[in-house]
């Protein structure tokens, strides 16, 4: 404050010093020891200052004050605009992923999109007594053939897409167990995307008692349902569980033959 008063006095008494000043409004005011003395002797004070505070020429002190205020306001407005722009761009705009970025992000989460499921694909096999521990994102599941899994929404795949889950941590069968360090190389779990759906609504209720504060917010988590179709990387037992259907028609045929006879 004292320095500002001093400068105002300077501009009034010695305006010639500020005529050739640049338009920049730097607020560098070097401190000086004898403030009281310099207020009465501006000439000696000027000699002590290495730098001068520059004002635009041909302006009164009031206008200088106003310009200072405007300068401060402009700076604040600029900061606010930047913040607003950043906020808008982060929340509103959808990032356009290239194919490589999609693959990279998907691989980071732990899956790879193979392609859409065709009608000719015979992907669904009967149950095999083999299991695997697979990681998707930050969640791990112990899966087997025919299981269904609910994970966080997987971005780059649509319904009826085939996926390969790469992060396999452990493989196991009735006779053998393969432990990964941390993942088993050359092991994969095949899955099909069944649906992308929203979970049931969860109401987040916040209250602070006796403080007149109450907030209610609803949230629905986006989920993806995967159907596990195949596990590769481990020897599967040869004696597969046979379904009971072929035995029933065979029995019926035998009964019919007996009746006819």
């Amino acid at each position, binding site marked *: 404050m004292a320095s500002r008063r001093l400068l105002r006095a300077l501009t009034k008494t010695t305006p010639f010093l500020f005529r050739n000043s640049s338009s920049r409004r730097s607020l560098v005011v070097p401190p000086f020891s004898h403030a009281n003395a310099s207020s009465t002797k501006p000439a000696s004070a000027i000699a002590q200052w290495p730098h001068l505070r520059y004002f635009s020429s041909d302006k009164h002190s009031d206008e200088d004050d106003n310009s200072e205020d405007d300068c401060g306001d402009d700076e604040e407005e600029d900061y606010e605009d930047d913040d607003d722009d950043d906020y808008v761009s982060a929340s509103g705009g959808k990032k356009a992923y290239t194919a490589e970025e999609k693959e990279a992000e998907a691989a980071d989460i732990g899956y790879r999109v193979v392609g859409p*499921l*065709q*009608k000719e694909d015979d*992907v*669904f096999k009967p*149950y095999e*007594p*083999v*299991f695997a521990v697979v990681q998707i994102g930050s*969640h791990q*599941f*112990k*899966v*087997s053939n*025919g*299981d*269904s*899994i*609910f*994970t966080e929404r997987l971005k780059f795949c*649509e*319904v*009826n897409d085939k996926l390969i889950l790469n992060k396999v941590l452990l493989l*196991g*069968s*009735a006779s053998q*167990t393969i432990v990964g360090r941390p993942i088993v190389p050359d092991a994969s779990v095949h899955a*099909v995307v*069944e*649906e*992308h*759906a*929203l*979970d*049931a609504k*969860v109401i987040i209720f916040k209250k602070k008692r006796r403080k007149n504060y109450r907030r209610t917010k609803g949230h629905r988590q986006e*989920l993806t*349902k995967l*159907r596990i179709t195949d596990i590769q990387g481990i020897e599967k037992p040869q004696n597969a569980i046979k379904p009971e259907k072929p035995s029933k028609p065979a029995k019926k045929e035998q009964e019919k033959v007996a009746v006819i006879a």
Partner: protein
Amino acid sequence: MKTLVRLEKVKSEERDSREVVAASDIFRAQVSGVCNLTIFMESHLPMFKEKNLQLEVVTELIRGQHPHLKGVYKNKSQRVICVKNMDPEDILLHATRLRNALGRKVVKLRTRHVTKHPSVQGTWTTAMKY
């Protein structure tokens, strides 16, 4: 005059996805009047139809009702979404959500892993010895 949109969609809930792929999905949309839904009908619905040939999209005019999308699923359940005063992009988002869902009842998940064969090497018990 109030406008109405109905979107009917049928999708299989069977485990066998062969049925999902081969299902004759029906996706109906009922629209009339001048509103954001008509803009959606003109701009986004043809593309939606092309991408989902397995769905039957039907548009109907029903007077006196708010514009809505109606999804009819193969498990005979229906899901209705009111799209009154929504932007065409939001309507497309809701239509895509209807299309992605299976039609099962929206219930809080009990487990994230549904299986019929929980154990391969045998369920552990305290009496088990290796």
